[in-house]
């Protein structure tokens, strides 16, 4: 699917695409946050047949309606595909040897086969941390791997 991006000087940006059924749909993003959803004429694909103007708030709601079901769909499909995979939050406890160490130092993937996909720190969530990411006490690592691998990460970070 090709999304074409066109600059509208003084107004903003227009993105448009042709659907599988041959209709052209576009979205104009004005710099003040307002959006226009544009449906093109079937006879004359250069002309607009209808334009719907959305405020910044309305366009967020529409985006959620269009996007959210797809995300849930994808997640549930992912869960089916990875039935054999486990996801778990592994904390960095106060006694852990890896407090203040970096993700690279811990070499988690090499040693356990599981991957750290995100770190939850307080209210914040750091997605895809890089190897130089430095752990702190009470960080919660989101780990994905086989159930053995995930358990191994827990033993590695917080040995008893």
């Amino acid at each position, binding site marked *: 699917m090709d999304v074409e991006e066109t600059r509208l000087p003084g107004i903003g940006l227009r993105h448009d695409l042709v659907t599988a059924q041959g209709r052209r749909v576009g979205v104009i993003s004005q710099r003040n946050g307002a959006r226009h959803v544009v449906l093109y004429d079937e006879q004359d694909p250069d002309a*607009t047949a209808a334009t719907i103007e959305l405020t910044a708030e309305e366009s967020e709601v529409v985006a959620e309606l269009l996007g959210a079901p797809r995300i849930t769909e994808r997640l549930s499909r992912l869960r089916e595909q990875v039935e054999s995979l486990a996801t778990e939050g592994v904390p960095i406890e106060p006694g852990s040897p890896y407090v203040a160490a970096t993700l690279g130092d811990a070499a988690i993937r090499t040693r356990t086969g599981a991957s750290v996909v995100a770190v939850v720190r307080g209210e914040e969530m750091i997605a895809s941390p890089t190897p130089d990411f430095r752990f702190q006490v009470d960080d919660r690592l989101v780990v994905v791997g086989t159930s053995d691998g995930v358990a191994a990460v827990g033993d590695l970070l917080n040995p008893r």
Partner: protein
Amino acid sequence: MEVGHTAVLLLELGAVVFGLGLLGSLAGRIGLSPIPLYLLAGLAFGTGGLLPLDAPEGFFSAGAEVGVVLLLLVLGLEYTAGDLVENLRRQAPVGVADLLLNGLPGAALALFLGWGPTAALALFGVTAISSSGIISKLLTDLGRLGNRETPAVLGVLVIEDLAMAAYLPVLTGVVAASSTGDAVLSVTVALATLAVVLAVAVRHGSTVTRFVGTRSNEILLLRVLGLALLVAGAAEAVHVSAAVGAFLLGIALSGEVAERIGDVLSPLRDLFAAVFFVFFGLSTDPTQLPAALLPAAALAAVGIVTKFGTGWIAGRRAGVGPPARVRAGAALVARGEFSIIIAGLVLGSVPAAFGSTVAAYVLILAVLGPLAPRLVDPWVRRLARRAGPPRPSGRAPTTA
């Protein structure tokens, strides 16, 4: 008891501004641009008009200058340096074709009528440049922002605005100079200054933006207006022209601050732009208008055809179909504020018939401009229906 000067000034000024308000709402109701009505009001209030007024003359002449500065400043705010550079790169050939197609008939008419080279140069600009104000409002009103020919139309407007930034200093230089050698020197100085200021505006826009940025809208308004008048005055002093100075400042200001400036300045721009159009009407002799109608109408007829030519060229370059190319041409017909700005610069140094011809020309095309797309629309629709969807999938030719 005699009525004091202040009372007369306020009464006349109040009557004029209130009258403009009524005209503006009338224009809005019938889908017209208010510009021709403002011009007509100015003609009516001027010497020899229906209702000659003399008290507010001083206010109007100063207000008109501020109006030009604000019109160009707000226009500049809408563009980012990126928009301009990208457009110049992609649309330069269309811009050259547009200016030559539309400007040359004007220049030819001025020479034919024996008005001299300055008037020819000025009339070149008057007929070449479309009205960004009327056209962008028109595209919004007709719901055509999404149309695939619209980027081409906007691209032409951007190129014209940029061309004007180079053209106005040349015109101001020519007007100010007494001999040919003088003119060459003053134009060279003006263009060199322009190049330096443009480079600064593009490179150091964020510094300028930080400099004026503040949380209070009141302070923002005063700072920006003050700075704009200072820059415009300095630009005028070196013959770059006040309008271009304000335009470049507008380009330099960017980001969220620029948007807020646009919001606080727009009402002020509307007021002083109205004053500017009235003032041009005031300084035009209405008794000359009937004699100017014929050349102006002929020029307008040619000007409509040549803008359709521009639309066709720009549309073809953007890869849209013939119906869309016709629509692009129709959208570009309107002339307005820029034609008046250009004419205002030379009024003192060209024959009086020039001013009334330009007034009549803009009156005609500012009225026909918003009508043209509506008039050709049924025909364009038939054309599109006859051609049918160009591809079975309904996919338009992709833009190159």
